[in-house]
């Protein structure tokens, strides 16, 4: 089976993505690894795709999304890096690959993903839920179960599909929805791509919900998962081999949630320490922290989220200012400073 794996990120996440691709290469040297980037390299950073641990780069602007600049402007960085996952997976269905796997850039493999290929013999769509065991503790219910109810049952840091049948039908549907509705707007039932996928078991056949604790281990499910390192060198989660970890929120918040639920299960801290070492090694000082080329107007002024939301909501503004990033006379920015203020 020809497998294509992609991740979607900006240059400020290149360090984490490098770690993901390094671990993918280690376990799956035959899989095609694609970097989907919605960004431009910062000045002073020489981006050499040939030296990166992936096989090729696809720039979001080359996905053929209509009115790309206006479309992009409607999204913040998280929203747009999520939204482009749809068009890419839809187009990848006609790329010659038999299966396509998406992994978030802050995931990393600690074991082989071969069982996915096995499951894809019988299923067209694979999803990992945030939780595979319910919590009983009140804090854990508030932190994890209710959070998943708000943000989506499945964690879309991972999805795998066959490029035919129900997999292809899912890809087209996801493409369509994410092009129009990939916003962090929980009051309206949207949390980027995730709430959409609550519908997947209802809308599609041949869906497998992966209830194996070795997949997509993260702070939100550590309350019901125990990690062990065996004397024979295997790492297990509730007895099953560890496959991949989702290192969400690298920093104090991620640390706090991890500690709250890992407690004395110290292999969890070993795995985080390993990941932090790899990310530090993969970090290029030439990339400014929080860099995103599309985070500012052409004159360098930062774009506020409220300005993106306004533009998103007003068809007249979209028609009047097809390139909302522009600055100067006749620009959306000028309109904001005068009439929009």
């Amino acid at each position: 089976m020809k497998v294509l794996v992609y991740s979607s990120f900006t240059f400020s996440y290149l360090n984490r993505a490098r770690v993901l691709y390094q671990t993918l290469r280690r376990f799956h040297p035959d899989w095609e690894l694609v970097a989907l980037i919605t960004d431009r390299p910062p000045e002073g950073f020489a981006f050499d795709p040939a030296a990166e641990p992936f096989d090729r780069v696809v720039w979001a602007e080359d996905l053929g999304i209509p009115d790309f600049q206006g479309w992009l402007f409607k999204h913040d960085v998280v929203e747009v890096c999520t939204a482009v996952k749809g068009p890419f997976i839809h187009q990848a269905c006609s790329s010659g690959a038999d299966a396509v796997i998406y992994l978030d850039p802050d995931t990393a493999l600690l074991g082989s993903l071969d069982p996915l290929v096995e499951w894809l013999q019988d299923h067209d769509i694979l999803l990992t839920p945030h939780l595979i065991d319910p919590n009983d503790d009140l804090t854990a219910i508030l932190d994890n179960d209710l959070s998943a109810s708000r943000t989506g049952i499945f964690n879309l840091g991972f999805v795998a599909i066959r490029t035919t049948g129900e997999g292809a039908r899912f890809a087209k549907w996801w493409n369509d929805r994410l092009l129009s509705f990939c916003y962090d707007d929980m009051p309206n039932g949207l949390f980027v791509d995730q709430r959409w996928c609550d519908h997947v078991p209802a809308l599609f056949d041949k869906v497998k919900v992966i209830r194996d604790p070795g997949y997509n281990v993260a702070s939100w499910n550590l309350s019901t998962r125990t990690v062990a390192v065996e004397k024979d060198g295997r790492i297990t989660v509730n007895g099953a081999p560890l496959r991949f970890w989702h290192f969400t929120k690298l920093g104090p918040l991620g640390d706090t949630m991890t500690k709250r639920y890992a407690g004395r299960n110290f292999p969890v801290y070993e795995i985080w320490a390993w990941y932090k070492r790899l990310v530090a090694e993969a970090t290029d000082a030439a990339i400014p922290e929080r860099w995103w080329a599309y985070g500012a107007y052409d004159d360098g002024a930062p774009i506020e989220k409220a300005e993106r939301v306004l533009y998103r909501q007003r068809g007249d503004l979209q028609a009047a200012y097809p390139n909302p990033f522009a600055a100067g006379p006749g620009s959306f920015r000028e309109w904001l400073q005068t009439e929009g203020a």
Partner: protein
Amino acid sequence: MRSLVPAALKLRLLSGFKRFDPDRAVVAAEFDAAWYLQAYPDIAKARVDPLAHFMAFGWKEGRDPNPRFSVREYLNEYPEVARAGVNPFVHFLKSGGEGSRAPRPDLGFRYDVIARLVPVEDRLAQAARASDAVRPGAGLAGALGPIGRRQLHVTFSHDDYTANVGGVQLALQREAAGVAAQGRDHLHLHPATPWPMLRTDEPAALGVVWNGQALGVFAAEAVAEALRAAAPARPGERSFAIHSLLGHSVDEVLAILAAAGLSEGFFWLHDFASLCAGYHLLRNDVEDCAAPPPDSAACGICLYGPWRGRHLSEHERLFRRLKLTVVAPSQPTLDLWRASWDFPVAGTLVHPHARLRSRGAAPAPPAGRPFRLAYAGLPAAHKGWPVFRDLALRLADDPRYEFLHLGLRSTPGLPVRFVEVAAGPENPRAMQQALEAAEADAVLVWPLCRETFSFVAYEAVAAGCAVITGPDSGNVAAFVRDGGHGAVLDEAALAEAFESGEVLKLGRATRRPALYDLDFGALTADLLPEGTPA
């Protein structure tokens, strides 16, 4: 941040705080002044009131009021307290009754060890900098003299056994004394400065010890040259033993041995450096790994994983070039080593560093005395000190138990009676005698890493104590199981045995133990055909 310059000014200010700080009384009941001064020597040096310092400055500097409360962890866990800018310990004590806030998340001591891990690259760079500062001397050939007429024994280890204290160093002293008694000259080579692993491309000079006297620091080539220059027409019997390759280069060792005309010798398993750069086989310094396959997931997340290949391939080269008889101080050590990697060896031996010789029954202790659990030696995490400390803290008010620490320095602020013991070359039985005098019922020997040979375990049993140890302690667990010398428990079973009182079965009154002398071996000197003086 922790400047002591304004200490005098602070002192005057602090005396004012004493009168006016209403929270002081709340904190005073739980504040551990002795621990604070021990943990923060700069405060002790500044001679300020520790409680006043904590209330005014300490908590803002991330200093803890006692070993049970972490200011940093509390603020991380409760960011609203950090935002409010209030003393987190005061906040905890005032809201503690609600029961929902922990003084610090119960993450176990291994969390702290992992948080403090220093990348191996940094350790290596630091070792290289220290080594670069050493300038090798000249004129070694003259200092060695005409050794060619005499019998010669060459040893390699990680340091100067005459200058450093430790189990391996003491053992090497006995080997040195043994070969001297056999009439052999003894050339000991060690890296001039410590290294965390064996060297490949990193240059370094070697310290040279000749018949127990440190001659100085020389380049490896100078050592080889001196040996070549001293080569006689008719050499006496020659031997060598490799005790540790840490800080050595295999190429240098081979060149030096070739210059001395040596190719058959002994390789000691004092640790597992031949299997991994993490020579304690302690994955990320927190758990015994048992040397799994180098491409395993466990090695993949280990700090030492990327360096394991260096130690395996370099040792393999050594074993291919020399005819080495491998000597383990215990059977479990040899068993694990053989199971882990297939080095080409000339032979294998088990030769313990000490044996027990009975000297009669121990006197019965007075009836009704609490069970005395002792910890012997350095209070270090990899020796299991946190396991002992946590047990002592948990059972501090339990009248069934008494906790003793025998060692060089006390750790204040714990419900533990300290007994000063300074063991060394001049009094090698000091620990055994102190344990016997203290009438400890049991010694907690809980190394996180598998010991190749544990002197402490032997000393404890010789003193009539039971040994309580964990399943990953290597020679200790085997010694306890094989000899019926105590109990092998995991951490959960350990806690349960103390809670239930099951452990009281190991009391002296119930066991009626024997006392022993320790007959120490002389390592390689025991294995050589007895030499004849020149």
